[in-house]
C-alpha cells in the first residue's frame, strides 16, 4: 500500500510540474507541427528536437547506470501497419481538437471550454474504440513487421550508443549554430513567460523521473479509456462486460526498486494504470490551473463559434480512436519512445507529419472558414 502511495504521489508531483511548465511556456506539441505547415515556423520544431535529444541522452545515461527499471519500457509494442494508420489519423485529429491528449489537459486547466469539449470527446472516442478492438487487434497481429522486436538498436543488433553518439554530435553542432543565430529565444509579451527551450529541458527531466520511478515515461491515454469504461459501467454495464478490450491487462511487470507488481488495463477498477496515469492527468490540470491563477489569467471563456466546438469534439473523438489504434499518443512516442528508438515511435512520427499537414488544411479551409 505504501509503495502505491509513493508511486501515485510521485506521478502527481510530476504532473503538477508538467502542467505548470506547459502553461507558462505554452509549449504545445500540436502547435509544433501545425505552425510548421501553416506559418512555416520552425521555432517549436527546434525545441522538440532539443527535448528528444536531451531525453535520448538522459535515458541512455540512466540505462547505463542501471537506473531504468525496464528497457524498453512496458506497453511499447512492436511495429505494425496499425501504427502508421493510427499516427496519421492522430496527426489530423490533434490539429482539429486544438491540442493533443496532454495539451487538452493543460489548456482545460487554464479555463478553456473548447479543450473541455475535446476532453469529453477523448473519453467518448476511447469507449468507441472498444467496439472495434477485436477487429483492430487482429489487424495489428496480421501486420506486425518484426514480432518481439521493439527498438531499432534491437533490430540492428547494436548498442543504442552507436546511434546516439552521431545524433548527439550533429545536434550539438546544430544547437550551437541556432544559438549563434539567436533562434532559441522569442521576444515574449505574456506575463511570466517561460522560453519553450527551458520547458523542454524541464519536461525531459520530468520524463526521466517518470521512467525511473514508475517504470515508464509519461503516458495517459489508457486512463481515458478507463474513464470511458467507468461511464459505460454506470449506464450500460452488461454491454461493458461483453467487450474484450476492457478485459485485457496489457501492463504486467514488476517494478524492482519497490518490489511492486504493476498490473492493469482499461477496465473500470483502480489498478496500476489508474495510480500511475490518473495522478499525472490530475497533476497536469491542477499545475496549469495554478500557473494561470498565479498569473491572473484563469478565466472561463465559452463564446466560440459552433464550428470550433464541433471541431474540438470530433477531433477529440477521433484522436482517442487513433491513440488506441496506434497504440499511444504523441507525448508517449515523441518524448518516451523516440529517445530509445522505439520502432513504433519512429513510424508514429513519420505518419504524424502528413496527418498534421492535412489537419492544418482542414482547420483553415473548414473550421476557420468564415
Amino acid at each position, binding site marked *: 500500500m505504501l509503495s502505491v502511495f509513493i508511486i501515485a504521489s510521485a506521478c502527481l508531483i510530476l504532473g503538477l510540474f508538467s502542467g505548470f511548465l506547459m*502553461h507558462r511556456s505554452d509549449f504545445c506539441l500540436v*502547435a509544433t507541427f501545425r505552425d510548421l505547415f*501553416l*506559418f512555416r*515556423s520552425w521555432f517549436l520544431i527546434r525545441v522538440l528536437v532539443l527535448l528528444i535529444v536531451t531525453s535520448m541522452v538522459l535515458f541512455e545515461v540512466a540505462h547505463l547506470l542501471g537506473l531504468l527499471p525496464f528497457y524498453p519500457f512496458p506497453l511499447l509494442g512492436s511495429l505494425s501497419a496499425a501504427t502508421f494508420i493510427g499516427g496519421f489519423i492522430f496527426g489530423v485529429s490533434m490539429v482539429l481538437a486544438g491540442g493533443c491528449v496532454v495539451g487538452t489537459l493543460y489548456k482545460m486547466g487554464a479555463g478553456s471550454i473548447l479543450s473541455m469539449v475535446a476532453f469529453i470527446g477523448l473519453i467518448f472516442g476511447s469507449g468507441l474504440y472498444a467496439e472495434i478492438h477485436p477487429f483492430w487487434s487482429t489487424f495489428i497481429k496480421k501486420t506486425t513487421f518484426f514480432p518481439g522486436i521493439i527498438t531499432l538498436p534491437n533490430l540492428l543488433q547494436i548498442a543504442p550508443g552507436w546511434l546516439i553518439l552521431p545524433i548527439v554530435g550533429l545536434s550539438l553542432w546544430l544547437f550551437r549554430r541556432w544559438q549563434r543565430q539567436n533562434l532559441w529565444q522569442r521576444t515574449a509579451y505574456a506575463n511570466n513567460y517561460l522560453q519553450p527551450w527551458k520547458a523542454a529541458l524541464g519536461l525531459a527531466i520530468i520524463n526521466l523521473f517518470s521512467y525511473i520511478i514508475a517504470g515508464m515515461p509519461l503516458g495517459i491515454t489508457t486512463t481515458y479509456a478507463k474513464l470511458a469504461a467507468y461511464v459505460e459501467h454506470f449506464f450500460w454495464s452488461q454491454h461493458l462486460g461483453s467487450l474484450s478490450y476492457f478485459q485485457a491487462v496489457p501492463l504486467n511487470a514488476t517494478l524492482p526498486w519497490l518490489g511492486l507488481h504493476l498490473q492493469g488495463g482499461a477496465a473500470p477498477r483502480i489498478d496500476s494504470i489508474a495510480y500511475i496515469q490518473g495522478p499525472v492527468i490530475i497533476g497536469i490540470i491542477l499545475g496549469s490551473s495554478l500557473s494561470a491563477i498565479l498569473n491572473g489569467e484563469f*478565466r472561463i471563456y465559452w463564446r466560440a463559434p459552433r464550428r470550433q466546438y464541433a471541431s474540438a469534439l470530433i477531433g477529440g473523438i477521433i484522436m482517442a480512436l487513433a491513440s488506441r489504434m496506434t497504440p499511444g499518443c504523441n507525448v508517449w512516442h515523441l518524448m518516451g519512445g523516440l529517445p530509445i528508438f522505439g520502432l513504433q515511435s519512429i513510424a508514429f512520427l513519420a505518419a504524424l507529419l502528413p496527418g498534421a499537414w492535412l489537419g492544418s488544411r482542414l*482547420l*483553415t479551409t473548414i473550421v476557420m472558414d468564415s
Partner: protein
Amino acid sequence: MAMTFEQSENKQFDIRGQICPSSLLVALREVNKRQQEIKAGHQHLTLLTDNRDSTTTIPEALINMGYNVSVVKEGSYYVITVEGQPA
C-alpha cells in the same frame, strides 16, 4: 494630413476562448484585408486574446510585415494593437 492613433478607426476582434491558432489566423486575415487603411493610418486593429502563444506569434509575424504591434495585459487577457508605421 496624417491621422493620429485616436482619430483612426478601431476595428476590434474578440478571439478569447477560441481554438488555436484563431488569434494569429484572424490577425493575418484582417490585416491583409485592410492593408491600405492600416498603413495609411485610417484604421487600427485591436485583438482581445487569452492565448499566451499568440502574444508572441502575432507581433513576430506582423512586425516582419512592417506593422507596429503592441501587447498590453488587461486583467485575465491580452490586448494586441496593430497599426501602420509612421512614414
